């Protein structure tokens, strides 16, 4: 994923989520998101076994 793609995603997602940040803050959010993406890239596309599927705890 290119930085341009990340910037476009972040700005669209910010609007979708209801944020109205000033430009320096939006740019910093894009930088932080880029770091999260870099860290996540070690596993997001890895094919993982179905038996690793998890669910959050819910006890009615």
């Amino acid at each position, binding site marked *: 994923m290119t930085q341009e793609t990340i910037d476009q*995603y*972040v700005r669209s*997602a*910010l609007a979708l*989520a*209801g*944020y*109205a*940040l000033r430009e320096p*803050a939006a740019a*910093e*959010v*894009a*930088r*932080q*998101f880029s*770091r*999260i993406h870099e*860290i*996540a890239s*070690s*596993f*997001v596309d*890895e094919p*993982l*076994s179905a038996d*690793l*599927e*998890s669910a*959050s*705890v*819910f*006890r009615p």
Partner: protein
Amino acid sequence: MNGPALEIAHLVRSGQRSAMAVLQATLARVRERDPRYNCFTAVTEARARQEAAAIDARRARGEALPPLAGVPYAVKNLFDIADEVTLAGGRVNAANPPARRDARLVERMRDAGAVLVGALNMDEHAYGFTTENSHYGACRNPRDPSRIAGGSSGGSAAAVAGGLVPLTLGSDTNGSIRVPASLCGVFGLKPTYGRLPRTGSFPFVGSLDHLGPFAASAADLAAAYDALQGQDPDDVACAQRPIEPVLSALADEARPLRAAVLGGYFTEWAGPQARRAVDIAARALGADACVELHGAAQARSAAFVITAAEGGALHRRRLVTHYDYYEPHSRDRLVAGSLVPAAWTQQAQRIRHRVYREALALFEDYDVLIAPATPVPATPIGADWLELAGRQLPTRASMGILTQPVSCIGLPVCTAPVWPRAGQDDHLPLGVQLIGAPWRETDCLRAALVLEQAGAAQALPL
């Protein structure tokens, strides 16, 4: 086996000292020392006097006193304290109504006879490893007040290290008990995920949040942990397990511990003092073998992504309306986290399961795994970057690089304070993680006790 907390409880129970006298001395110490360290955000003096008086009244009536009778303690300010506002380090929470009742663990400490003295400084919403809180001021490390106390439970570690109170409570999502315990030179316990209930504490990341105690000795830590144990249906993550007393088990258990050093990732990201601390601990525990948790790097990544996403989601609505009220050090990370796609977090949860299974296999041969708790000793307050393995890393997000893989898979860990006495920071401690199999907190605390009795780990008094 002893420590300042158990010594106080012994003196109060035997009538050699009143709980009120202990409290008066504690309050005087807090007034005298805390301006240097900035551990406390609130002192609950009126309540403390009531609790101390109640202990003394029980003794006067001839009642048997509970195990922590008259022991002063304080809690990270994300624990609910009845009639106090739960700040969780955030100015954005300052106008919230006061808590109506105590957090479950505060109730248990009160039942054990402990006396609550106040609430403690932390990184806002527990998102940080330095306790440089822009609203309530940086917490300073009693070992060197120019250095960070670590975080996010910085006030909890510093209050014990500075001798203000003998016991504190904190939380640990990614290392927030173990990092400050390491940097301040005290003992800290992050129990197994699900062991202690979070009811009445301000959440950060529900699938990773743990609560636990800090102390100045392994025995004190075990005594506090014993007081905190028990089931709680109000926290769905709290395991339905019986109480497993540790303090008595420490004295009775004769089985030798099988210990190994956790290498690979945990050596790669360890600075020279961290490696020396592990060597000292390994020698004392007779750990000749070195093993690897191959999924450690991915577990750290998974923890990072889950934290960003769950933390961001928790705060999104208020970030939209109150962005300017949030901590400048972490608010943009929180906003970025709130934009993380669900598929990434789901994949991260799968990684947790895989690495957990890998870790279980290691515990077939070993009871305790040793790793550094922090890559370096305490850094100067205001240092934005630290250099590690030839890379520049952001201090506030990276001090937990060695703790995150372990909490990600929920294992119990006791951090024990070691003094590497090497390099330019030879006046500073650096803790080791003593990592046990799930639900084997006893092994972690036994290893800490062995280190303490061998002189390899010690919470040195100031």
